[in-house]
């Protein structure tokens, strides 16, 4: 049985269609990420699920109930907001127990729950403080505490970490993941941070302009992006898109790359079927930085690996890797190289391309070709 199912949900404000037919489905205990650029409708979709706003058409089910016409309090959900939305006039304890109080949970039970939540989130020493006396990270914990106090069947998180500094964000990310593992409750989590999306999600829905561009597991979305938008959005540094001509090589097809004074034609493994139609035309050849590395002897000779010598324009050391920029077909292409093997700007170096995961897009429609 699905924990949440969203069927053809649309939402218009004053004739502007903000959500254009969303279909999503998750199982019990799954962690769903809604990711996409600002203004794409993530928060709107979340408030439809929460019942803070009504859908224009379509159906939302939580568990086995259609909740379209239920008010938020009857949907068996809890939500954490970007601003945390702690009640400023109440102490942490009162913030956590407010919902319980309204649901007429007996006082002794309330105290027990507050204690359990405080232990889980290590906020026991903060219970008698007001929100204004807490740090950002502590407020975030309290907001989570308020949500988990009720043991709902679905959690909704709207960018809960975006107000924290980088270090705390990473810490809390881990904690949320641990919390999810421990409780096993389904979560819908909005973010526009693609790293958060990759690390936390069981399923990711990549959204753009009110439409789901792709819905799948993080690995599927990373390895097999449905279109140029998804490919460019997920991954950091993002995928290289190189305009390249398709040419016949041997029995298959390949892409023609020019760098420095040299021209290379790289055969694409398994690309014969779909690339055939594009022979002689230009496609966008997509390859991730980590698929272009220094030359490794052990892999030489494998069909999906190709090597080429290219001039270095710039290097950007990040510590574990060094990003090397080389020009290919007039574009700067980022390659992820082991620091010990990286050359210097002005020199040239031998790079090894792993074409097994390369992808190809139609430059006009931006849809995936192969």
């Amino acid at each position, binding site marked *: 049985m699905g924990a949440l199912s969203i069927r053809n949900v649309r939402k218009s404000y004053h004739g502007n269609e903000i959500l254009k037919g969303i279909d999503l489905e998750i199982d019990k205990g799954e962690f769903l990420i809604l990711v996409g650029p600002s203004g794409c409708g993530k928060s709107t979709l979340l408030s439809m699920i929460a019942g803070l706003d009504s859908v224009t058409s379509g159906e939302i089910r939580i568990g086995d109930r259609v909740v379209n016409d239920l008010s*938020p*309090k009857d949907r068996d959900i809890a939500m954490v907001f970007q601003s945390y*939305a702690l009640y*400023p006039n109440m102490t942490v304890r009162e913030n956590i127990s407010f919902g319980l109080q*309204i649901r007429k949970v007996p006082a002794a039970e309330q105290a027990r729950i507050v204690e359990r939540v405080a232990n889980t989130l290590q906020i026991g020493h903060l219970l008698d403080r007001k929100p204004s006396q807490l740090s950002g990270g502590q407020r975030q914990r309290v907001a989570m505490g308020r949500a988990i106090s009720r043991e709902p069947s679905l959690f909704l998180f709207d960018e809960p970490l975006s107000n924290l500094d980088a270090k705390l964000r990473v810490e809390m990310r881990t904690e949320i993941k641990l919390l999810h593992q421990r409780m096993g409750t389904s979560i819908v989590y909005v973010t526009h941070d693609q790293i958060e999306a990759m690390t936390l999600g069981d399923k990711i829905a990549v959204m753009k302009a009110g439409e789901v561009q792709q819905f799948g597991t993080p690995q599927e979305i990373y390895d097999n992006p449905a279109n140029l938008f998804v490919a460019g959005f997920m991954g950091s540094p993002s995928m290289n898109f190189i305009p390249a001509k398709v040419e016949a090589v041997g029995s298959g097809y390949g892409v023609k790359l020019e760098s420095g004074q040299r021209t290379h034609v790289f055969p694409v493994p398994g690309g014969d079927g779909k690339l055939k139609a594009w022979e002689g035309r230009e496609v966008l050849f997509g390859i991730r930085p980590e698929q272009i590395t220094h030359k490794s002897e052990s892999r030489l000779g494998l069909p999906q690996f190709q090597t080429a010598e290219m001039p270095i324009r710039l290097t950007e050391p990040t510590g574990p890797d060094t990003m090397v920029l080389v020009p290919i077909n007039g574009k700067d292409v980022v390659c992820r190289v082991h620091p010990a093997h990286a050359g210097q700007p002005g020199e040239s170096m031998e790079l090894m391309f792993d074409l097994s995961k390369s992808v190809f897009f139609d430059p006009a429609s931006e849809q995936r070709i192969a």
Partner: protein
Amino acid sequence: MADMSVAHTAGASKLGRFIIYGLLALVCLYYLMPLFVMLSTSLKSLDEIRAGNLLSLPGEFRTDAWVKAWDSACTGVQCEGLKGFFWNSVSFVVPAVVISTMIGAFNGYALTMYRFRGSDLVFGMLMIGCFIPFQVVLLPMAQTLGALGIANSTLGLVFVHVVYGAAFTTLFFRNYYVTIPDELVKAAKIDGAGFLRIFFSIILPLSVPIIVVSVIWQFTQVWNDFLFGVVFSSGDRQPITVALNNLVNTSTGVKEYNVDMAAAIIAALPTLLVYIVAGKYFVRGLTAGAVKG
């Protein structure tokens, strides 16, 4: 070079300060002078008033003008001072202030946190209510009070002031509530709180600064009102402002300036008191939206 410029700016700012404080002192004097004249006149004997200088201090402090103004001065035919009228005013000002503030808070909450179809229009119409002069509503209001059967009663006066004040109080509360984040209300809805519960448990406790603003404003308006008081009440039900007018205009022989002054101060005292007690919250509440946190 650097030293010189520092010295120079320090000198300039000292001069600037001197000018600012000088000006402030002057303005202060200008506003306090009438109060001083009233107070000192109210403590003088009639003989001293006639003989002496307007600005001189009383030679001997006498409180009999105050006693008379409170207890036995004539306000028309009867001569029982202001005391009865003072309590008249209290009896309708307090409920009028409390009720109009409550209505304002409630309206403001509904207009900002529960936007309904046409809520902006409703707010716009309420805004217009702030610009309608008293005189315009006198006649229709008299008819309404008559129809409701509460003409010439304390209740009627409360009603008039509540209706007239609601536009202002709604404006105050609405402008304050737009600065409260929506997410607070959303969170409470998800916690299961309803319209009233959210208002009383979350919004109202956050409203103290604007409640103070509303109370001061309404108290001043309603207490100092003369026109509604003179039109919609009569006889011994009249408010203190009307009684003061009658007291000053009742001429039985000599004009008792000291009694007039004492009476005027008595009539102004409650508003003065409210400002002194709550004034700092007033300023804070008015600027609460502008300076967050």
